């Protein structure tokens, strides 16, 4: 039987952790459910009050019931919470009792917050923040998130006012063609736009440095063919994820492994080797590699001591790596075969599983030591909106270099403002909801 109830239920505390476990119910049947399953001396359902008593359904457990009256609850609807012992067995039984009673159905991911949003209890940005906080697995991540949304709004506001005044110069020129004082409008406009561009670039950069907190870290393993990239991936994974042979060019497609280390989620990506002369198929592989390199938060560039010619043992990066130098970590592999004493980077042997822990520690601290205090974005949606605004403003500057119509310039700028306004005040429609709640977890 499909349960069509508008009342939802879920476990609100993280799974498998001890202490108190909370089952949350939200919707018009909340109170009924409380009455049906909870026995207490004077269960008056007074708003916000905790009632001590006994849960009795297919299991029995002593604990508290809390009732929040609409519209003062988290979701804005009548809400009941059962605070019981945190045993997964008890909590799961409570859920199935309630669902089987037909008075509620199991909540979908993020449905509580979604309802809070529908009922005007939180706005979209807050919902995003909640999402990020609750999907943050440890306190390190959660700590960083505090107060970001305020910072973001302030930032957008100040940027917007800068752009509005830059438009004003152009508008004066357009609307008052006969006035004398409106001539050099562009000279007044450009510096303001340039400032905005720089500030946006900084903001995006802060986020790029910090986003590993919100969506994990992508580490790309790159290097010449046969240097042992796939071997390293396997060493990190702890099993044979990628095929290893002594034939150069074995790996043609990117292969990923996810691990959690030091509280951060990592995705390691093995790529096709990079070499000078390319066959057609490999070329495709190289293009894919390049894309991975661009997206990478960190690149492990592997060297094979046997491949380095004796006289000029240099550790230069290949052509086209210039723009990645900031995020490259050089690694010397196969040190079981040959050591190069003056190589200053990390030395490992993928085959013999030597130095792998050291490498991971180094990667961990690479991220943890980052100064992320300046960042104020916390979702990709925000990031891409800012990026779009940046590209519009860059288009404007580009346009302003050539022959210039003020009304076209103004059109660029007002578009950029519109996009920025969207960051803090996007009108929530279905596609946005989907993107925000797509990766929400249950219980919130």
């Amino acid at each position, binding site marked *: 039987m499909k349960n069509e109830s508008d009342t939802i239920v879920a476990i609100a505390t993280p799974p498998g952790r001890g202490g108190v476990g909370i089952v949350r119910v939200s919707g018009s049947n909340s109170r009924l459910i409380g009455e049906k399953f909870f026995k207490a001396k004077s269960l008056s359902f007074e708003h916000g009050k905790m009632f001590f008593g006994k849960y009795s359904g297919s299991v029995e457990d002593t604990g508290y019931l809390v009732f929040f009256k609409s519209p003062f609850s988290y979701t804005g609807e009548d809400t009941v919470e059962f605070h019981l012992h945190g045993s997964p067995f008890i909590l799961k039984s409570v859920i199935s009792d309630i669902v089987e009673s037909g008075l509620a159905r199991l909540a979908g991911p993020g449905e509580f917050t979604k309802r809070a949003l*529908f009922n005007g209890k939180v706005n979209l940005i807050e919902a995003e923040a909640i999402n990020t906080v609750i999907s943050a697995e440890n306190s390190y991540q959660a700590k960083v998130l505090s107060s970001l949304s305020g910072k973001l709004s302030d930032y957008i506001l100040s940027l917007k006012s800068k752009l509005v005044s830059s438009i004003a110069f152009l508008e004066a020129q357009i609307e008052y063609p006969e006035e004398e004082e409106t001539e050099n409008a562009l000279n007044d406009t450009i510096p303001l736009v340039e400032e905005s561009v720089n500030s946006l670039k900084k903001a995006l950069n802060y986020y790029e440095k910090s986003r590993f907190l919100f969506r994990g870290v992508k580490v790309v393993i790159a290097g010449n063919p046969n240097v042992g990239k796939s071997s390293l991936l396997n060493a990190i994974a702890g099993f044979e994820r990628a095929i290893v042979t002594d034939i150069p060019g074995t790996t043609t497609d990117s292969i990923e492994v996810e691990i959690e280390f030091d509280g951060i989620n990592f995705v390691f990506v093995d790529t096709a080797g990079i070499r000078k002369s390319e066959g057609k198929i490999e070329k495709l592989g190289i293009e894919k590699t390049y894309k991975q390199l661009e997206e990478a938060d960190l690149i492990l560039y592997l060297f094979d001591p046997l491949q380095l010619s004796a006289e000029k043992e240099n550790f230069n990066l290949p052509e086209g790596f210039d723009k990645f130098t900031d995020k490259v970590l050089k690694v010397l592999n196969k040190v079981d075969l040959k050591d190069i004493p003056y190589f200053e980077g990390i030395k490992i042997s993928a085959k013999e599983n030597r130095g792998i822990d050291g490498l991971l520690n180094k990667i961990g601290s690479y991220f943890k030591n980052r100064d992320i205090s300046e960042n104020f974005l916390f979702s990709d949606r925000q990031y891409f909106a800012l990026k779009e605004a940046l590209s519009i403003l860059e288009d404007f500057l580009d346009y302003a270099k050539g*022959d*210039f119509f003020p009304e076209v310039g103004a*059109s660029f700028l*007002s578009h950029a403002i519109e996009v920025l306004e969207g960051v803090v005040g996007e009108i929530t429609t279905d596609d946005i909801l989907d993107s925000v709640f797509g990766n929400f977890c249950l219980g919130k």
Partner: protein
Amino acid sequence: MVEFDVVVIGAGHAGCEAGYATAKLGYKTCLLTINLDVVGQMSCNPAIGGLAKGHIVREIDALGGLMAKIIDKTGIQFRVLNKSRGPAVQSPRAQADKVMYRIEMRKTLEETENLFLIQDIAQEIVVKNAKVEGVMLESGNFIKCQKVIVSTGTFLGGKIFIGDKCYPAGRTNEIPSLTLADNLKDLGFKLTRFKTGTPARVHRDSIDFSKMERQDGDEPPFFFSFDPPERKVEQVPCYLTYTNEKTHEIIFKNIHRSSLFSGLIQGVGPRYCPSIEDKLKKFPDRERHQVFLEPESRFTVEYYVNGVSTSLPVEVQYEYLRTIKGLENVEILRPGYAIEYFSIDPLTLKVSLESKEIEGLYFAGQINGTSGYEEAAGQGLIAGINAALSLRGEEPVVLGRDQAYIGVMIDDLITKGVDEPYRMFTSRSEYRLLLDHYTADKRLMPIGHRVGLVSDERYAKMLKKYETIEKYCKEVLPLSLKKVLTEGFFKVFSEIDKGKTPTFEKLLKRPDISFEKIKPYLKEDYNTSYFIEVETTVKYKGYVDRELKRVKKTKNLEKIKIPENFNYNISGLSREVREKLERVKPQNLAQASRIPGVTPASISIIYLALTKKKR
């Protein structure tokens, strides 16, 4: 008792368009005027058009209204402003012959079937069961009718101020409409006091034009109308001069005597059309302000002193005018004055310009809180069309913000309301590049034609025009410069790099190149009479697409309709927001999102509430 289908109260720029439209669409219309000898009078400056306003006139023409036709026949100087900018912000402007304009307007109205210009004063709009029944006139006559369009301009409770003098009037020495104001209050309309002003008119022969800069019209003149008259215009110049420190000194010394600053005037004036007193107060450091001398008519000696509208006493007006270069011996024929009048709150109107509360009652023009002839005429036309459509039992015409400045204006009025007289600016449109006036015919004539104000013949001509343009764009634009232009071009425009401008299209894209400039070098086969339209397409290519994409985004919100009886009592909406929404009653989410103070978060809440059932 007499019977009409429609009564229009006031024969100013709004009323003339409204009455013309309803009559033309087949409804017997009474156009009431306080004085039959001044119909379609230009109370203020003797010019029509200019930035954004010129756009509106072109839109009126495309929809089948009058203003463009009349000014084309009677203008005495024609100019396109902002010629050095792109087509979207160019705008036609004409100096009118005020006398001829109103004579021509009256003649046109009198020749319109079903239309009766009647001199009388509306005393009371008779309403029964929230529906219009007729209009009681001060003469004692009662007109039974189904629709009333109120377009009283500055006449509703009008009061004129000159220094410490003030007297009731709609214009100098013309009686205002007083009882109607009380009637509207009784009908539940909240009336606001607005103010506007006008400068002195001076004698031509007392002006020394030789000390001023002469401004001539364009040759050939650019007419407003899609089918302009065959007319050789003997253009009359305007003259530019400036105020100076001496002028400012006198005004400052006497500023306390201005009715504006003495506290006599309560009404709110237009920020964008300030009196000279206002200008000096606001920009005390500016050394000079522009002053234009514009002829009022070929048949009179009056000149309008544009830029120094005022409510200072007459003797001060003399004193400061005479400090201005070229006006040392000026003689004033009529002093400048300020005028206060009543307007209603446009938030009480539907997008059709009909009252939300009283069926059959429409408002147009200055009474809705706007300023300017063109703004008034645009509303008049729409109110007229919609009154007629309603009589036909059809849906009203609603012009989109991406379609017409008139659409932007009406949406602004009924969504944001006004707290000062509303003047049109191109920047009020978020899609300015789409609204160039050259292609107003393409956007709006289909509507005018469907409604019945544009003849089949005229409509077909417009379609043909755009076929020709499209063909030209497809066939000629991709050609090389050598193919299209004569040798002479390359000599004169030697700086143009042929390598970088391989095609004719690339050449036209340059802001420094216009068809007008290269016309002499265009080979015979490649000439076109629609070059400005072609140029617009080329110049804005790409940029227009960007705007269209943005339009599409709001269109999605526009599709989400809000039922008229929608209950805004949703949790999460603050009381203020709720009150605003209830007042405006937006038709869809896009309009709701434009209401000031309604945050995106509240829009999301409404959206979610509207679609909650479906989830």
